[in-house]
């Protein structure tokens, strides 16, 4: 005998995420919600409001800032936190560099992987025992394997070979001291679900998600953005193209796609037809190695 609820697709996902957010808050002492200003974290924050208003959120927002942000994203982050009257904690990779805990090969090298170090330092400084993140299983093959309540050991490491069982929707959030949880309320959402929900709920996003003209250079399959930290090389042809970002990450590893989708409904139409995955189309950090995401997560990444 199987059972079902009559909720429609997005309502079901929304209710599940709210349930997970409330479990996370109830089962931890000192949680935080990872908020970068990207679309997934904007959706997560919106769901957090749905889970906890009229009260204040039972956790601060936390951003691990590489310092290599695209224009408008940090402003969006700060304005959103201020508008909601919620506390924002920013942990800077730059400070880890100065402390000497992050050492980069060159001053303009990607700071993406270094985020794990800064994140673990923030966890220690603030004593966080649970971090809510907007990661989705459909993003990557290692993420597809992760639990909703993902246990991390005292070193912040994910051990994919011995994850805790996770039965039904009964989340066991118990920890030994020093360990922490990463909790992913959007685990079962796809990129298309995110966009249709953004449309339905009219969730505000930074402008670079929408088509705009930007200087780019061709780099294999990608249009690499020309920025202060990623200047065009000698002799490279800089073109102004109509593009948008599908993910927003560190400037050194995130590329836009060519698109004239200027609003959410146009993006939804494009997403339905896309033959490239979100990360495949935009993230150079995953191209380095087949198991790039898995290795970063083992080291404490989100």
């Amino acid at each position, binding site marked *: 005998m199987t059972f079902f*609820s009559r909720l429609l697709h997005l309502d079901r996902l929304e209710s599940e995420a709210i349930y997970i957010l409330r*479990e996370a808050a109830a089962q931890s002492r000192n949680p935080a919600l990872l908020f970068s200003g990207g679309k997934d974290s904007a959706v997560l924050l919106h769901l957090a409001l749905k889970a906890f208003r009229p009260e204040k959120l039972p956790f601060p927002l936390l951003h691990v800032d590489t310092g290599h942000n695209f224009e408008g994203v940090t402003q969006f982050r700060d304005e959103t936190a201020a508008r909601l009257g919620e506390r924002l904690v920013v942990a800077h990779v730059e400070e880890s560099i100065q402390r000497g805990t992050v050492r980069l090969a060159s001053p303009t090298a990607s700071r993406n992987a270094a985020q794990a170090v800064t994140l673990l330092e923030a966890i220690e400084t603030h004593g966080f025992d649970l971090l809510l993140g907007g990661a989705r299983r459909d993003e990557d093959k290692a993420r*597809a*394997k992760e639990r909703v309540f993902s246990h991390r050991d005292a070193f912040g490491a994910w051990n*994919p070979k011995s994850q805790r069982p996770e039965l*039904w929707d009964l989340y066991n959030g118990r920890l030994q001291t020093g360990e922490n949880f990463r909790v992913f309320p959007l685990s079962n959402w796809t990129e298309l679900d995110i966009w249709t929900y953004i449309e339905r709920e009219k969730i505000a996003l930074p402008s670079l998600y929408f088509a705009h003209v930007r200087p780019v250079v061709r780099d294999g399959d990608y249009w690499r953005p020309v920025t202060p930290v990623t200047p065009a090389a000698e002799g490279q042809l800089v073109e102004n193209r109509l593009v948008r970002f599908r993910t927003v990450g560190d400037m050194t590893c995130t590329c836009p796609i060519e698109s004239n989708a200027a609003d959410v409904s146009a993006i939804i139409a494009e997403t339905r037809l896309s033959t490239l995955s979100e990360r495949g189309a935009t993230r150079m950090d995953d191209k380095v190695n087949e198991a790039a995401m898995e290795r970063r997560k083992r080291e404490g990444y989100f």
Partner: protein
Amino acid sequence: MTQAQTKLVRVVTAGSVDDGKSTLIGRILHDSQALMSDQVDALSNARFSRAEEGDLDLSFVTDGLESEREQGITIDVAYRYFATPQTSFIVIDAPGHEQYTRNMVTGASNADVAIVLVDASRLHQGALKVQTRRHATIAHLLGLKVVFAVNKMDLVNWSQKVFLEVEESLKRLSRSLGITNAAIVPINARSGDNVVSKSPAASWYDGSSLLDILQSQGEGTDLSELPFRFSIQRVVRVDGHTIEAQRGYAGRIASGQIAIGDEVFVGPHRRPTKIVRIETYDQSLDRAEAGQSVTLYTEDEVDAARGDLLTRGEANYAKRVTADLCWLDDQVWDPRRRYIVQQGTSSILSRIENVLHIRDMRDLSEVRGDQALKLNDIALVQLQTQTPILADLFQDNPKTGAFILIDPDTNQTAAAGMIRGVA
């Protein structure tokens, strides 16, 4: 407007190691155009691929971990999402290896249907493997619908005789477990015969393709038709300036429906009160039903807390229940030990008083006695709890009839439990 109206089917694979589960999931996704072109490219360049030149190792669609690819086995469950015009699917690829049975249980607990695979070429006189029986048993205990796929039919030249032998064994297994009307489909997961569409290779087979069978699953029981059950996640305090301070109870409705004015009962003491408001973030509702996350306000101060239940209709509370357990912990059961029962949002201390029987997976017989419960054992036990718990039977209401046992010393999830009776 969108995919909103489609029904949701959650499918888990099951069966012994190497019988082709991951390959089957990869094939379903590939043939339903659910793989992106960069993901297909990544498959053709993958290290450790077992496919021949020019072919893809489809098991790598879900075997995404380095060690899984290196060893050619699935270690933990992977979740993938795709939709056909009628149905939106969550497909969950589970490991076949006995060592990782707890991960299979994890996957199965989040599914409605199990595809139990059998390798047609590796049965001796139709004898099923122990792991096939174990997985079918787990799927059935967890209330899943079971569909059998007889795989690798290419290796037996699509012989109907072999298929009938396997079919006979599967029917015997079904009978001994009490599984009724399970479909049995001959397939080749590697090439896709009978997976998404029907294949001419088996002219003697007159059933549907596997995907069609999955899509045409009946929906089962509507949770909103069951008695109302609501486990409080969080007490909300509103210090109103205009209205007086009020307490609301936030949670997700496990089953049934609730409307303003309805009488509900709080906890095992069954203290009655009335619902006066039903709220979400931006709406006041007149009624709400199973699956919705809402905040309920009651007529009077009932002093309820996280973990307490609000119920309507008949509700049995008991301090002694019988339950099926799947033991998931490396540490064996210790009879002197207390375990935390987590049921809904409540946590209550408990003790396993009695092991009524353990199932022997070789012949599915029930072995009596007080042996230690160890990793992967499936047993019927008598459980005593410190305070009464709601004793809905799992088969009547899986949302409230399910629980987990947690070892309070290690914090490990020690067992998955399903309430079967009041002892």
